[in-house]
């Protein structure tokens, strides 16, 4: 080990202490039954109906959230590409500005907006419309997740879209492609690495989310993240919590392999 690699020391200590060791502990707990016997039942508990239902709901909401983020981010990136704002400034506005406010606080703001006596129902009441049950629903969770994770979609997509060369788009037009064909045959395929990065960066955290569902679901909507969290904090069943975590992790890894296969042979990005 040379002197330069010693500089990585603090980080290695950090990653071992706070990622590798906890992970090993989770595996240890997941495979134990509390009486010193090895068991797979904690991991296989994911197939119990109540857990499976929570996983599928989480999967559905994550897909919805990722889809909405992509549909919002791509046209925005196309518009931003036309405006001549410096790339640096754009990054600051999209990423750094929202981070000035803690994400839990921002979600709590949504709670206030969506609640029974909240701002939105107040506005609806003022124009004579009946109040809606907005809070404590799957929809509220999706709104919150889209709001929080949108920057992680915009950033890689915007990056990929601004890298599109004008002359390549002109070449496609020149060869007879109307604007729609330019989008589907040239722009989207060329920005695919950015789109896949964005999907990964939004899909994984929204699949495993528990704080946002907790606050905006009001305990009424149970996602797999909430069940795991409760096993650790309320039920104090660390074995089951760890087993479900491992099962979720395996699920995420499988979807990652799926996306990285998509990326095969394509230029890899930092994002």
């Amino acid at each position, binding site marked *: 080990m040379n002197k330069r690699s010693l500089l990585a020391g603090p980080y290695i200590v950090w990653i071992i202490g706070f990622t590798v060791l906890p992970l090993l502990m989770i595996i240890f707990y997941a495979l134990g039954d509390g009486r010193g016997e090895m068991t797979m039942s904690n991991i296989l508990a994911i197939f119990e109906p109540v857990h499976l239902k929570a996983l599928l709901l989480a999967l559905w909401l994550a897909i919805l959230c990722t889809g909405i983020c992509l549909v919002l981010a791509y046209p925005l990136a196309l518009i931003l590409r036309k405006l001549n704002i410096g790339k640096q400034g754009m990054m600051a506005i999209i990423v750094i500005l929202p981070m000035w406010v803690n994400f839990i606080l921002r979600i709590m703001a949504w709670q206030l907006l969506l609640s029974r006596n909240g701002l939105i129902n107040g506005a609806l009441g003022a124009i004579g419309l009946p109040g809606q049950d907005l809070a404590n629903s799957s929809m509220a969770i999706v709104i919150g997740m889209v709001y929080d994770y949108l920057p992680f979609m915009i950033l890689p997509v915007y990056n990929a879209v601004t890298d599109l060369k004008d002359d*390549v788009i002109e070449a*496609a037009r020149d060869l007879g*492609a109307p604007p729609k064909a330019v989008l589907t045959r040239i722009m989207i*395929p060329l920005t*695919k690495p950015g789109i896949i990065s964005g999907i990964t960066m939004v899909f994984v955290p929204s699949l495993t989310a528990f704080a946002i569902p907790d606050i905006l679901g009001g305990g009424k909507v149970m996602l797999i993240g909430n069940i795991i969290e409760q096993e650790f904090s309320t039920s104090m069943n660390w074995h089951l919590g760890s087993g479900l975590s491992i099962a979720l992790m395996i699920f995420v890894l499988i979807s990652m392999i799926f996306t990285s296969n998509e990326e095969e042979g394509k230029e890899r990005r930092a994002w």
Partner: protein
Amino acid sequence: MEQAILNLEHLSKSFDGKKILDDLSIDIGKNEFVTLLGPSGCGKTTTLRMIGGFIMPDEGRVIFEGKDITALPPDKRHINTVFQKYSLFSHMSVADNIAFGLKLKKKSSAYIHDKIKYALKLVDLEGYEDRHPMSLSGGQQQRIAIARAIVNEPKVLLLDEPLGALDLKLRQDMQKELIKIKNELGITFVFVTHDQEEALTMSDRIIVMNQGLIQQIGTPVDIYNEPENAFVADFIGESNIIDGVMPKDFLVEILGIPFPCVDSGFGRNELVDVVIRPEDMEFQKPGSGMLDGRVTSILFKGVHYEMKVQAGGFEWLAHSTEAYHPGTEVGIYVKPENIQIMHKPTSAAQEVINTNE
């Protein structure tokens, strides 16, 4: 010129208040190889992009086969472009790049297959179908770009400095290649370049432009031998441009010395610009030429030597296959037919002619 396929009528364009094109009109014939030649910023690329449909003129019309296509988007024009930066689609194979336009036109796969084969043969890249464009050299990429454009059977092919990024040897090969391709296809080429040698080599007709105005239109031989003004003379090859006076027809006084020439029709004692090409400067024994001078520098250029000669208070540029070393006394002689006389610019429009880049 045969029947015109493309008429540019009074095109004008300004960007940010700066006039890029000023009332430009050109007729381009069928099967013609026309080159727009000029320094950067002269408006040649803007003109090409108007023909391609990428820029709308502020004023004027683009007529293609008798129809006004000024407002037609690029994908609706039977015109294709070869771009300076090749602009290949990096996410497609060579074959898919070439097939792009044909697939949009919903041609049969057998037709597309034949076309790809034919186009690759034409640009000398047979067997490259499955290669990835980014794995090819610049010259090969440009050939693919040409193949991709010509499979659509455009009636006019626009070429925007397509050889600019290639090295000299490759550029010369590609020049011959392009002429071959043009002759085989029998379509109109509109070529943009700032390289005067390229323009002289390839074109049927050259349009010399500067600051949004046409300076001269003519065959390469006309443009080189009979430049209409000092800008053209200076831009096309090297030349000695000197002030002169025409005391009478067939005689011009340069630096106070009478030179017989073949030009007539100028006003009595009219001030003129005189152009003498360096290769037309002939050296004789001192005293036997029109004026004597002394060689001040010599450079070996391969085909010839380039000498500077101080004579009559002017520094002359001369090319010769024989070396005359600095300090040598020479007599300068110029044949009358090698002296080119031009009117001095008079109007404001002509004034730009003298502003060099």
